[in-house]
C-alpha cells in the first residue's frame, strides 16, 4: 500500500480524513468523488462544445441566411425558412436521400450477415484462427479514400483486375463490366468496396459479443440436450445481439454520411446515380457556394440521423437490459 498522495486533491482528502471523525470522512470522500467525476468529464465536454457544438449552432444560424462562403464581405440577409422550404421541395435532394438509403441498407445488411458469420466461424477456435483474423482485419485499417482511389484502378474495364476476374469467372466480356461507368453497376461498385472494407469491423464487434457469452450457458444447454440450432437461436444470437446492434449503429451513422470513398470512386456519377447526401452537400456548399442553403440541408440531415439514432439507441438499451 502506497501512502504517497499524488495530487492536491488527494492530499486534502487525506488531511481531512485524518483530522475528522468518521461521518465527515464519508462526506469528504463523496464530495471529492463528484469533483473527480466532473474533472474527468469536463475536458471532453468542453472540447466537443468548442469543435462540434459551436460550429453546429453557427451552421444553424447560417441556414437562415443567404450567406455565401466565397463572398464573406457581402451583406448577409436573413431569409427565414426559405432555405428549408427549398431543400425539402427539391426533388434532387429526395433522389440523393434515396440513393443514400439504398447504400446504407445494402452495406449494413451485407456487412452484418458476413461479419457475424465470420465471427461465428472464427469463434470455433480452429488452429491458426488468430492469424487469419488479423489478416481479415487489414482492409478496415486502410483509408477509404486511398483505397477507394485504388479500387478505381481495379474497376477499370480493360486493365482492371476486378473486371478481368469477373470476366474470367462468368465469360462476360470485360468491356461490358463498366463498374463505375454504368448507371446500374456504379451503386454496387461502391457497395462492394464498402462491404469489403468494413465487414471486418462488424466481425470484430460480433466476435467480442460471441466471446462474452460464458461457456457455462452452453454447458447448461448441453445438459438440457438443446440442439445446436436451438442453442444458436436461443443463446448465441440473443446474447450477441447488443454487440451486433452496436456495430450496426456505428456502421449506419458512418455510411449515412459516407463521403470519401464515393467522392473518389465515382464523384457521384455517372450522372447523379451515386450522389449520396454528402456529395450533394459538397456540390452545394463547395461548388455552388450556396452556404446558407447547404447548411439548411445539413441540419435536415442531422435531424434525420439524430432522430433515427435516438430511436435506435432506446431499442439497444432495451435489448441490453433484457
Amino acid at each position: 500500500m502506497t501512502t504517497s498522495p499524488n495530487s492536491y486533491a488527494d492530499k486534502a482528502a487525506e488531511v481531512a480524513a485524518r483530522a475528522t471523525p468518521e461521518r465527515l470522512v464519508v462526506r469528504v470522500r463523496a464530495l471529492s468523488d463528484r469533483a473527480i467525476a466532473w474533472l474527468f468529464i469536463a475536458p471532453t465536454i468542453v472540447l466537443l462544445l468548442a469543435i462540434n457544438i459551436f460550429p453546429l449552432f453557427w451552421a444553424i444560424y447560417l441556414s437562415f441566411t443567404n450567406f455565401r462562403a466565397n463572398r464573406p464581405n457581402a451583406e448577409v440577409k436573413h431569409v427565414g425558412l426559405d432555405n428549408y422550404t427549398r431543400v425539402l421541395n427539391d426533388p434532387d435532394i429526395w433522389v440523393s436521400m434515396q440513393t443514400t438509403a439504398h447504400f446504407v441498407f445494402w452495406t449494413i445488411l451485407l456487412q452484418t450477415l458476413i461479419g457475424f458469420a465470420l465471427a461465428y466461424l472464427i469463434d470455433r477456435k480452429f488452429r491458426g484462427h488468430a492469424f487469419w483474423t488479423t489478416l481479415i482485419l487489414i482492409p478496415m485499417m486502410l483509408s477509404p479514400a486511398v483505397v477507394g482511389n485504388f479500387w478505381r484502378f481495379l474497376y477499370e474495364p480493360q486493365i482492371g483486375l476486378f473486371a478481368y476476374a469477373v470476366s474470367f469467372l462468368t465469360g462476360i466480356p470485360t468491356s461490358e463490366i463498366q463498374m463505375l461507368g454504368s448507371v446500374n453497376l456504379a451503386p454496387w461498385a461502391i457497395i462492394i468496396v464498402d462491404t469489403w472494407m468494413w465487414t471486418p469491423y462488424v466481425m470484430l464487434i460480433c466476435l467480442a459479443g460471441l466471446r462474452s457469452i460464458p461457456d457455462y450457458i452452453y454447458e447448461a444447454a448441453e445438459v438440457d440436450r438443446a440442439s445446436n440450432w436451438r442453442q444458436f437461436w436461443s443463446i448465441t444470437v440473443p446474447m450477441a445481439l447488443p454487440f451486433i446492434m452496436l456495430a450496426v449503429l456505428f456502421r449506419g451513422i458512418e455510411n449515412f454520411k459516407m463521403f470519401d470513398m464515393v467522392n473518389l470512386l465515382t464523384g457521384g456519377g455517372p450522372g447523379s446515380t451515386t450522389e449520396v447526401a454528402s456529395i450533394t452537400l459538397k456540390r452545394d456548399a463547395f461548388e455552388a457556394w450556396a452556404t446558407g442553403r447547404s447548411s439548411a440541408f445539413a441540419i435536415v440531415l442531422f435531424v434525420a440521423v439524430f432522430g433515427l439514432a435516438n430511436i435506435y439507441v432506446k431499442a439497444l438499451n432495451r435489448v441490453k437490459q433484457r
Partner: protein
Amino acid sequence: MSSAKAPSAKTTSVNAAHSVVEPSSRSKRIAATLVIVYAVVTMVPLVWIFLTSIKSPPDSISYPPKILFTPSIEGYCNLFTTRTRQTAEYIASLPEPDGVCDAVTRQRNMVIAGSSNFLPRFANSLIIAFGSTFLAVGLGTLAAYGFSRFKVPLADDLLFFILSTRMMPPIAVAIPIYLMYRQLGLSDTALGMMLLYTAVNVSLAVWLLKGFIDEIPREYEEAAMIDGYSRLQAFRKVVLPQATTGIAATAIFCLIFAWNEYAFASLLTSGSAQTAPPFIPTIIGEGGQDWPAVAAGTTIFLVPILVFTILLRKQLLRGITFGAVRK
C-alpha cells in the same frame, strides 16, 4: 433461467480438454476452410496494390493484368520525385546517373526535377494522427471512467450527446469550422487538424472505453480504497492496468480514423498541413493517374498502421473480448 443452472456446471471438469462446448473437429475444419477462403479473397486487392507498386508503368496497365513481371522500382521513384521530359540528346549529354531512380527516370527520357510533396504530407499524417489519438484516448479514458463509476446527472443524455457529435456529416461541419479556424489562425495547421480529429474521435473513445471500464468489477477499486488508496490512486493503479487492453484497442480505432480521414483534410487543408489521403489520389503522371506511384504511396501509407496493429494484435483480440474481466 440460465443463471439458476450456472452452479451445476462444474468448472474444474468442463474446462479440461474435452469440454462439452468445444466445437467438434469437423466443424472446426469447415470453419477454418471458409475463413481462410474469405481471408485470401479479401487480401487480393491489397496484394494487388503491392504488386502494382513494384510494376513498371507499362506493366501496370497491360491486358490481361500481369501476375508475373520484372519488378521495377519506378513507382517508388515517381512517388518521391517530380520529373521533366527532356530530349534524348540532352539526356545523353548528362554525366553518369546518380542512383537507381536517376537511371530509371532517364530510361523514360526524363530527368528528376526535384522531390515531390509526398514526404511532407506523410509527416503531417504521422504528427496529426498520433497527436490526436493520444489526446482522444486520454480524454476519453477520463470521461469514460467518470461515466462508468460516478452518478453523473443526466449521464445517458450526456453520453448520447457525445455520440451525436459524430453524426454530423463532415461536410456539414466543414464550413463553420473553416470560418472559425480562419478567425483563430488555425486553418491549414497541424494543431487545428489535431484538435478536430480529437473532437471526432473522443466520442468513439468514450463509448468504447466506458464499455471496457464497466466490465472491470467495481470491487477491485473498492478493495483498494479500503486499503487506503484514494480514488485517483485506485483509478491509476487498479483501473488503468485492468483497462490497458481496452485502451489499446480504442487507441487503434482512433489512430485508424485519424490516419485515414479524408473529408476534413481535403476541405480544410490545402498546403502546409495537408495529410497523405487527399494527396495520394492527386499523384498523376503523363496522361493520367500514375498507378505504380499511387500504389507505392498507398503501400507506404499502410505500413505504420500495419506495424502498430500487429504489435498490439494480442491485446486487440483480447481487448475486444473484454478480457480484462477474465480472472
